[in-house]
């Protein structure tokens, strides 16, 4: 973690890790403006408590946790939920070629954007951050069984939809 001691100041952290936090927030939210809002809001709120955060061994993890929780509690749910799977374009055929892999990822991205926030958060923490379920549960403040059920539900839905769309084969 980059926040290792209390002498690392807030500005250095933002300049050093801001880009990574924006990438994380973008993958989490699926929306560039919302990602910027999330990161800005969380950093602004943590600014005044920075001395205490720098004293932590896992300060950056604390910031990411705050971003996830901010995302889950964000009130702008209507705009977020506007992305629906029905808008996924029809595939053109098999997906063995590189260009078709790009199309598959685009379709997968659209499917992800349509998931409920909590399910999406679980998938992002598992597949983008490579966190185990127990750490995801701690981060989200829920039971491991909840993490597993959220992930299973999301994956089941996505698997069914991807199969319908012919995005991937025998998986």
């Amino acid at each position, binding site marked *: 973690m980059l926040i290792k001691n209390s002498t690392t100041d807030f*500005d250095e952290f*933002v300049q050093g890790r*801001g*880009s990574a936090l*924006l*990438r*994380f*927030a*973008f*993958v989490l939210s*699926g929306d*560039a403006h919302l*990602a*910027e809002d999330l990161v*800005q*809001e969380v*950093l*602004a*709120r943590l*600014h*005044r408590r920075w001395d205490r955060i720098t004293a932590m061994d896992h300060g950056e993890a604390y910031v990411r946790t705050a971003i996830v929780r901010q995302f889950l*509690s964000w*009130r*702008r*749910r209507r705009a977020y939920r506007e992305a*629906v*799977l*029905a808008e996924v374009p029809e595939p053109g055929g098999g997906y063995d070629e590189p260009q078709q*892999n790009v199309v*598959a*990822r685009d379709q*997968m*991205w659209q*499917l*992800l954007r*349509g*998931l*409920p926030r*909590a*399910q999406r958060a679980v*998938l*992002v923490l598992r*597949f*983008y951050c490579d966190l185990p379920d127990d750490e995801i549960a701690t981060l989200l403040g*829920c039971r491991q069984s*909840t993490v597993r*059920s*959220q992930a299973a539900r*999301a*994956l089941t*839905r*996505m*698997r069914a*939809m*991807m199969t319908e769309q012919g*995005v*991937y*084969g*025998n*998986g």
Partner: protein
Amino acid sequence: MDELDRLLADTMRDAAGHAPTDNGLLGTVHRRSRRLRRRRTATVAGVSLAVVAVAAGVPLLGGEPEQLPAAGGVQLAAGWTAPEFPYTLPKTEGMSDPIATSENGQLSAFFEATELENHADVTVTVSDDEPGSTAKATKATKRVRGHSATLWTVNVKPAKQLTLIWQESAGEWIELATDDTYTPAQVVAIADSLTGASIAVQPPFDLAVSPAGLETDTANASRMTFRAPGAATDGFRTVLRKRQQLTGIDRKVGKYDAALTRRPDGVTLSVDVTDWDATLEITVDAGLTITDADLVRYAAGVKILNRSNPE
């Protein structure tokens, strides 16, 4: 890790490359941090003046609080009365307290699910007319609160949308919308559990004065609009937007630069609210007349609240 897992991981890594850059992030964060520190006292009229004026219950730029006449049109009256949403659901673990809003004259209450294994977001809307739907949906007849109701199911992914609609009384229709986290029977049970309440709409601004005789049309995170009784549209709009470059700056509202523009179809006062990195835009359509002085006075009485969210 199976094919779907790998595709998910690849998709997320690929998408991360399209994230916004961190150009200007540090400066923006510092501005927002300063804004948070000021949030309880910031007003368009200025911090100290606002606190004193609100506490004293007088307009922020002086004058009498009760009647502030405008020539031949909109009159400003002290304060603003929030519309109230008339129902609520029983307090349930895993569901947040309701947040009431008004959109185009329709009152809604949003109950956000905080525990997502057994609960889903629920939105209840009250309207004068029967709600319609253009989406492809299957319909089922239910019995709700002693009334015949229709349950619409729209089969979209990843979650089916369930909407229950019934006429509660003459001139009052209720729409309860959620998703297939709940079974149809559970949706009906939720509807049956509605009880009478008075949940005040949460506005994005405190208003020292508001247009007298106009009805609140919309009060959400970024705008408060008002409609003359019987009018088809909201003729008096206050909107908080993400900061825009002002042109034609010709005056100050409190300490902030502002531009007032009169056109055949109405008048707009835009205020550069630098503390909030936003532009406060007040528009009064031609059907409602207001003097420049009253428009500025109205703007000066707008206190932007932390719950606001520029659009």
